């Protein structure tokens, strides 16, 4: 049976002033209905580019190669019209900043109804009824009176709920959420993550959640990919990965996050240096310059994904050494 979404060796090249840059390098994963997948990494690691490539929303200066197939149908080679039929309909996306991803001059009711009228040909009245139902489902109080509201009349958390309602209006098969709660307060974040989760379960969708926040990822998704320098460097089930982080970057990232309750008892371990410029990637492993366990071979060849356990793999030449305990 073909997978719902199969990404195979996805490459995204960006035109920059210094020549072409490989923003996404050889990313492969697959997704079935009901799966929840997290993509973790810092800025510039290629996680957002991967999502945009799936949606066919890459900027002008970027080109995608490889395969992204939705139930067997390749999306990379599709023309714009066909992609429009898929966006919002089969795959939906929500973004980080709900204020800029909602049109400030249209009422929210209209924005939610738009995909429904576009993809499902619903009449205005039917779309309105469905909009009210959706707003209620996403937890917006008094939905009937809210349909005429403009984005600026709502709080950040409410706007994000509207975005979710919009994304779900055509019951897509896949929901991609790119840093959906980064701009929100932590108590609102909790509510939004709960909501996304419940909806994913209820509607049997697949979820791709992109975040830089290890805590959010740990508590929301079943499987995860860790990205660095455009490539996946560790992947597996959330349980397995967090139990024993294998890649030096993942370990470094985990050690660098201050943890509540620890106080200043332990100094935060830092990863020296900075992320290399996307257009000036060294040959070999992108993390070599900063890696505490770097070997000669790391600078020459890109490491392949090595399977450590049934649901845990990492791309590193220095895995023989014991992975650091997460405590």
């Amino acid at each position: 049976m073909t997978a719902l979404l199969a990404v195979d060796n996805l490459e995204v090249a960006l035109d920059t002033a210094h020549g072409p840059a490989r923003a996404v390098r050889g990313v492969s994963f697959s997704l079935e209905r009901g799966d929840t997948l997290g993509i973790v990494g810092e800025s510039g690691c290629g996680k957002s580019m991967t999502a945009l490539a799936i949606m066919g929303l890459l900027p002008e200066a970027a080109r995608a190669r490889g395969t992204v197939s939705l139930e067997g149908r390749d999306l990379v080679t599709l023309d714009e019209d066909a992609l429009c039929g898929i966006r919002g309909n089969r795959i939906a996306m929500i973004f980080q900043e709900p204020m800029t991803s909602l049109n400030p001059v249209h009422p929210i009711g209209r924005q939610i109804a738009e995909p429904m009228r576009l993809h499902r040909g619903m009449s205005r009245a039917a779309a309105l009824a469905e909009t009210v139902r959706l707003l209620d489902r996403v937890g917006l109080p008094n939905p009937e009176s809210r349909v005429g509201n403009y984005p600026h009349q709502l709080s950040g958390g409410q706007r994000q709920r509207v975005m979710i309602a919009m994304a779900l209006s055509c019951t897509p098969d896949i929901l991609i959420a790119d840093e959906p709660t980064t701009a929100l307060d932590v108590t609102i974040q909790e509510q939004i993550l709960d909501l996304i989760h419940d909806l994913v379960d209820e509607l049997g969708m697949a979820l791709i959640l992109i975040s830089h926040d290890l805590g959010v990822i740990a508590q929301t998704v079943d499987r995860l990919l860790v990205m660095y320098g455009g490539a996946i460097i560790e992947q597996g089930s959330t349980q397995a990965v967090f139990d024993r982080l294998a890649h030096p970057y993942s370990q470094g990232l985990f050690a660098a996050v201050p943890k509540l309750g620890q106080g200043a008892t332990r100094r935060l371990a830092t990863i020296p240096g900075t992320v290399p410029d996307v257009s000036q990637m060294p040959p070999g492993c992108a993390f070599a310059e900063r890696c505490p366990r770097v070997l000669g071979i790391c600078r020459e060849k890109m490491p392949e994904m090595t399977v450590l356990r049934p649901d845990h793999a990492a791309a590193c030449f220095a895995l023989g050494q014991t992975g650091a305990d997460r405590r």
Partner: protein
Amino acid sequence: MNAPSETVVAAEALHKRYVLPRESLFQPPAEVFALNGVDLEIRRGRSFGVVGESGCGKSTLARVIMGLERPSSGSVRILGQSVYDLGAEDLRGLRRHFQMVFQDPYGSLDPRHKVGRIVAEPLDALEKIEPDVRRDRIVGALESVGLKAGDTDKYPHEFSGGQRQRIAIARALITRPAIIIADEPVSALDVSVQAQVLNLLQDLQAELGVTYMLISHDLAVVDYVCDDVAVMYLGQIVEQAPVSQVFSTPRHPYTKALLAAVPRPVASRRRRRSQLQGGVISQMALAVGCPFADRCPEAQPRCQSESPALRSIAENHRVSCHFA
């Protein structure tokens, strides 16, 4: 412990109201109640964190304490002197003792100035000094944040976000202030860069004896850098205690909910039912009774009618709740 240390910052009964532009000719303009009675005291050597979510007033508090916005009522004393009662000259002189670091590493540095000039700005504002002395101070400040003397002649755009934040910290250090007020100093930085800057803040605290007032929405950051913390909600402090106490035994229902909401990097898919529904109600009307009453899972009728005072329930631990 030691003898009681000097009070660096003392804020008393701070209120701040903003009047919004009129929306209608027939109604008085709306007001935003940003601070509703804040008292705090920061002692030398004990860094003080302020946490809270949007609308709690923490950024307003930072600006009022920095002397950038006059409070509607109340006073701010830095090293004993009342900031809003001083003349311009005296205030400028006092500023040597309190400096600020801002959130946005891209916006808080003038893109048209070289780094040396940016870092020396607080010195230049105060008094004329010899060029040699000035240069030495600039280099000293840059080196203490891990940058190099050669960076003096570069422009901000030549540096990364983390490095720019170090430049901002160097600027705050150059007058050797007693206290640095840092408003979300690491929120705009990546995780690994954030760790570097947090370690730097800790080191500076240990080596130079600088005290911080750290504003953050991120509780773990405050846990790492600060000794005491105040939790704010709708313009008031609802709980204040040493960091270890607040985070291990919170007493105020809001603090408990806030702590429970922070996602820990531990794999667990159990869904926590969030304890709070809805969001912060607007700050447009002064609440009668406890400002948290309508969202509080432990609210009683008394909470709606009677406003709880911030009272001590243990040494150094104050809570504003009827039932703590």
